[in-house]
């Protein structure tokens, strides 16, 4: 018999007792099957795997076995190996599971207690098969605080979260602490904004509490617009109750009774799971009037973002909640005094909110014991790009880039040379190889010309063109800028034009100082934080990879072989063994040749995409050279960017 929820928890003690009972109930299970149903695994087909489990367990008549539990959970982080299935308490970790594997898993592992070796993860470096979750290098160095429950709970089942101690921090804060004590605890923990800017959460709350006014708001920023970052999506999808819990505590601390969660429309599952969680929390008396009988009222509503990177900026986000276009305003007056609807508002990132309950429960000292001098606690990162193990990672602050990329990430894809890691999204920069031993914290990343941002870590190898990366970000920002102020809007237009011509081989040497001067003014003159940092991707690539710019501008050569107008590919005859790998991936059918015979590349058909080069790793029989007469490529019409829907 599973314990059902009471209609409402009338007092904190009722919640505590229920949490303890649910915990004991879950710990009594002989086996718990966790099927990852995060967006990544769903994309790999995990819904069908989960359905197969449900069917198979039912068919064998063991679905009602009290010793057995089966759950659809949020993201385990190791999205690349999905669909993932984890069996607790033994932590047996199956990866790339297909629906057809399910009967065998049920037969051999669930019923027979045996491990199926072929479904285990094989470490690409040691070539060893690994059975347990925590023995996998990807998980070994992780410490999960903000992501503590993800993958272990069914986000649609409040009881699961309660068994993991959800809302106990609410009981403690509302039941036994004054708002000032809550703020002091958060302040002492050293928690800083996990959205990237790193402002002290405690200080922000204190200002909002002190701000005059009866009506105040707490807001959760789930507009994770940084390309390459998806930790907030994962938290909202996989453990929405931690975020709601953090918001209740924050609202109590600052004296707010209304909350908003702003979530990107691109994250439909997050919206769905969060909505479900809010209903459950309301029904259980954890939200709404008189929470846990303490007399404190607070409720949360979801605001779906319309798809605008700029809405990650606090004042733009607040305008968007108010139904307007997301144009930032000058923040000479802080949001804690005048935010949403011109009323005092506290805005924190999803991850920050998720950290709060743990800080209240375990205390500021526990949290502050992790991390570096000024950056306390843990941080979630999305480790992606040209790295072997891609996925979501949470580690204490202060881990080095090398540990993150080479120990957790397993090194560079195809063992190519590491070139840079891009952190902090479009407001960040590219950190080069000689800074690999940099401990990751807010200050160190800023000193290196980048920033923490949303925790996106995009790993780049020698096949990444840094000029192309800068051009990419410039284009991204040009598209995403709100367009309100001159330096950001016009500055990005010009940065984009200059990058386009450099990548086409039409760059001029004076382009580099021109961009530097423009960038410096954008930094001081733009209206909002995004405009002021819009130049950073260009600035950091110019700082660390100037030689690549010079190669493009002076030699009309793309050292990474990425800029098509500057690159031609050829087959090295003496190294080709006729394996056909290149022929299969060539989208323009430019490569011909019989099996086991020398292949030929037709330059007339080749589109210089480089797909052949990237697959020819065993033989290295493809090479690239600078395109002759690159300067003859006609320039693009100014401002003629690829069409968008409204143009």
């Amino acid at each position, binding site marked *: 018999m599973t314990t059902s929820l009471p209609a409402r928890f009338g007092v904190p003690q009722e919640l505590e007792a229920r949490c303890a009972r649910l915990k004991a109930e879950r710990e009594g299970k002989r086996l718990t099957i966790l099927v990852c149903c995060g967006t990544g695994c769903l994309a790999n087909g995990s819904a069908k795997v989960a359905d197969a489990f449900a069917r198979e367990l039912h068919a064998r008549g063991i679905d009602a076995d009290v010793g057995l539990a089966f759950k659809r959970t949020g993201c385990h982080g190791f999205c690349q190996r999905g669909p993932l299935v984890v069996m607790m308490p033994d932590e047996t970790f199956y990866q790339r599971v297909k629906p057809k594997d399910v009967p065998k898993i049920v037969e051999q592992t669930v019923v027979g207690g045996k491990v199926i070796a072929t479904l285990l993860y094989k470490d690409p470096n040691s070539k060893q098969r690994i059975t347990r979750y925590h023995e996998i290098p990807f998980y070994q160095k992780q410490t999960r605080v903000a992501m503590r429950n993800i993958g272990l709970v069914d986000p649609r089942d409040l009881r699961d979260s309660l068994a993991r101690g959800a809302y106990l921090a609410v009981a403690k804060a509302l039941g036994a602490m004054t708002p000032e004590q809550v703020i002091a605890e958060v302040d002492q923990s050293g928690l800083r904004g996990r959205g990237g800017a790193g402002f002290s959460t405690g200080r922000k709350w204190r200002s909002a509490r002190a701000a005059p006014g009866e009506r105040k708001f707490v807001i959760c920023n789930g507009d994770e617009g940084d390309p390459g970052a998806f930790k907030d999506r994962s938290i909202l999808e996989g453990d929405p109750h931690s975020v709601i819990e953090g918001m209740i505590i924050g609202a109590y601390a600052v004296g707010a009774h209304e909350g908003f969660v702003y979530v990107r429309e691109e994250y439909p599952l997050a919206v769905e799971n969060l909505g479900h969680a809010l209903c459950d929390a309301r029904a259980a008396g954890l939200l709404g009037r008189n929470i846990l009988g303490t007399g404190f009222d607070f409720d949360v509503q979801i605001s779906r973002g319309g798809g605008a990177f700029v809405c990650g900026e606090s004042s733009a986000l607040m305008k968007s909640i108010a139904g307007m276009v997301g144009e930032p305003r000058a923040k000479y007056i802080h949001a804690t005094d005048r935010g949403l609807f011109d009323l005092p508002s506290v805005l924190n990132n999803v991850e920050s909110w998720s950290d709060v309950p743990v800080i209240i429960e375990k205390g500021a000292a526990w949290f502050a014991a992790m991390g570096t001098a000024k950056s306390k606690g843990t941080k979630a990162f999305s480790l992606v790009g040209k790295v072997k193990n891609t996925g979501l990672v949470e580690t204490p602050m202060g881990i080095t880039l090398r540990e993150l990329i080479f120990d957790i990430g397993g090194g560079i894809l195809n063992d190519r040379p590491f070139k840079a890691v891009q952190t902090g999204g479009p407001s960040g920069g590219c950190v080069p190889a000689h800074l690999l031993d940099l401990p990751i914290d807010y200050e160190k990343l800023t000193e290196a010309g980048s920033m923490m941002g949303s925790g996106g870590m995009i790993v780049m190898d020698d096949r990444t063109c840094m000029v192309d990366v800068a051009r990419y970000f410039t284009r991204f920002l040009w598209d995403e800028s*709100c367009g309100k102020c001159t330096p950001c*809007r016009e500055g990005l237009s010009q940065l984009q034009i200059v990058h386009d011509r450099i990548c086409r081989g039409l760059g001029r040497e004076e382009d580099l100082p021109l961009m530097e001067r*423009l960038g410096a*003014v954008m930094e001081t003159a733009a209206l909002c934080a995004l405009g002021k940092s819009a130049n950073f991707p260009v600035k950091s690539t110019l700082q660390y990879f100037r030689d690549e710019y010079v190669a493009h501008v002076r030699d009309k050569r793309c050292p990474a072989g990425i800029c098509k107008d500057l690159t031609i590919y050829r087959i090295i005859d003496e190294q080709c063994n006729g394996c056909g790998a290149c022929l299969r991936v060539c989208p323009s059918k430019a490569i011909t040749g019989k099996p086991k015979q020398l292949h030929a590349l037709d330059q007339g058909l080749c589109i210089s995409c480089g797909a052949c080069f990237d697959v020819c790793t065993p033989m290295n029989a493809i090479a690239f050279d600078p395109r002759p007469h690159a300067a003859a490529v006609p320039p693009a*019409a100014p401002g003629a960017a690829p069409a968008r829907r409204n143009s």
Partner: protein
Amino acid sequence: MSHEPSGRVVKIEIDGRVVEARTGEFLLAVARRAGIDIPAICQHEAVDPAGNCRMCLVEITKASWDGWSRLVTACLYPTEQDLIVKTHSAPVIEARTVLCDLWLARCPDSAYVQKLAAEFGIEKTSYQPAAVPTDQCILCGLCIRVCEKLGPAAIYTVNRGGRKKVAGPFEGPPPDCIGCAACAEVCPTSCITVAERDGTRTIWDKEFQLLACTTCGRTLVTIEEARYFGRKGGLGESYYQLCDRCKRLQTAQQATKVAGLPLTVGGLGEASGRPFRSPGSLTTSR
């Protein structure tokens, strides 16, 4: 955002001069009152400041800031005690110069932008000028804010980022436009065209019939404008049946009738050559 200065009188320093101001008052207003010139494009006393153009950037610091300073827009920055403001420091001039350079790339044909850029020593943009003749709009947004303030809110920005522009709904003639032409009046680059011909006015690709004075026949305002402000101001549409001059004449005639005195038109002064202004119109005083 509404803005109320909190009123405490403080002393601040602008370009070496000590100036009195109330806390919360915007720097631009304080400077102008003291006769200190700060260039501003997207600012107009009729509407709230927006900080769009960035031309009014000034450098601020305080003695307690350890030499640290930053650029802020004077139009939006609230005055506070001990502020030291430099309106023409090197970083300020550099920022304004680059802004003008960027506008010149955007609107190479605009006489207004050319003149502005020339003031900063720019004859030719350092950037790639727009090849197609542009509409000469620098997106300062004054037209939008004025239209909103007057009430119709007929035009707005469309799209975002580099594709942003000012337009009516569906980028067509704005259904809510009343043809008052206040937007054109405040436009710094004069890029909103207003054409008047044969008793009609065309603006935003929309044609309006102009009301004529029932006495002298001179064109007054658009029918839509008369209707809009007649209703909004509680004046009734009949308010717009006569032009100003004929209205004065009528009043005088009535007064004369009451007093039983003879009337001479000349005594009321010459009719001004200026076009009629509706009560809703705004005047620029830049």
